[in-house]
């Protein structure tokens, strides 16, 4: 297995409403995204929203399994107009704490639907820390060439996203 960095995006002063990767090369077999992020509003968590190739049609589906430090739940599968790969820290959590998320897209240049698995955690010095596992799919024959990552309101400064090919 060879892991190659495509790009790391670091959110600068003032925050950013989204993070985008474009021009993703088709040279790997799989893609790995790691995200260390926090949002400018909210209490405990914010769900991350993601589209691929700017596709906003209802071509995504997801199955979720998560815990919040005191209870566990599962939901789905749901058809959606965007992926929900997991959670990051919201503004009400312990200061300077950032969520940690890993997303894996298998066979991202395949003409078949893409399988996407994620795990994410949010930490805080209190009860409401979240652990979430997602199974997603993108029902589209195109190779993944771009990735748009959004949250409600903004990613705060120092949030980072690193994208790798795995081959």
């Amino acid at each position, binding site marked *: 297995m060879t892991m190659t960095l495509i790009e790391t995006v670091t959110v600068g002063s003032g925050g950013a409403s989204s993070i985008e990767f474009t021009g993703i090369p088709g040279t790997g077999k799989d893609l790995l995204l790691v995200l260390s992020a926090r949002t400018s509003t909210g209490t405990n968590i914010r769900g991350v929203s993601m589209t691929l190739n700017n596709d906003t049609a209802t071509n995504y589906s997801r199955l979720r399994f998560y815990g919040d*430090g005191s209870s566990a739940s599962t939901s789905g599968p749901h058809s959606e107009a965007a992926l929900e790969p997991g959670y990051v820290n919201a503004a009400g959590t312990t200061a300077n704490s950032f969520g940690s998320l890993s997303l894996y897209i298998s066979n991202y240049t395949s003409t078949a639907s893409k399988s996407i698995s994620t795990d994410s955690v949010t930490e805080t010095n209190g009860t409401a820390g979240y652990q979430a596992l997602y199974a997603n799919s993108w029902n589209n024959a195109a190779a993944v060439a771009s990735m748009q990552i959004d949250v409600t309101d903004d990613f705060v400064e120092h949030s980072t996203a690193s994208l790798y090919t795995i081959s």
Partner: protein
Amino acid sequence: MSVKSLSSSSLTNNVFYRSLLVGNDPFIPFTAADDLLAEVTLTSSASSVTFSGLGAYSDYKHLQIRMVSRSTSTSGNNVGFRMNGDTGSNYASHRLYGNGSGVFPSSASSIDKALYYLQPISSDDTGNFGSGIIDLLDFSSTSKTATLRWMYGFQTTNSHVGLCSGLWNNTAAVTSLEIAPFSDNFAIGSRFSLVGIR
């Protein structure tokens, strides 16, 4: 990449090149994004394993620990993580795990280590080790507290699988990471690999 011959493209054709590449693409050495930085395999049982001097790896963005471990304890299967030698109550942890009969979320705050990593104990199947991968993103940042994210699992007489996290509530760059069972020792054959990710 097609390679232009020096003899056919520059000398015989009277083409003037300003570079010895004579029109070829430059060769850029391939750099893998992940490197094994250190590895410890126990030849005798040990009460802890510490990766120190992590400041020397600041050209890496993220760190990952890959663990294969087992406890010598007859009862205690918990493993704790401490950073920069901090033994104060500056940690929190959360987990979501299953053991074949249920799903169990829980949390702990203001504790003296990050916890909820579990491993087999001495009464579990002989020679069976648990495995786990622990991610620490942006470990050199001085703008973030440290968040560990890990998955672990083992299939023995007492089986577990879990997704967990740990907070070190300090924005210092992480320069050392101690991994220690709560009781007794890591067993012989336990292995701990430190991987740097650019």
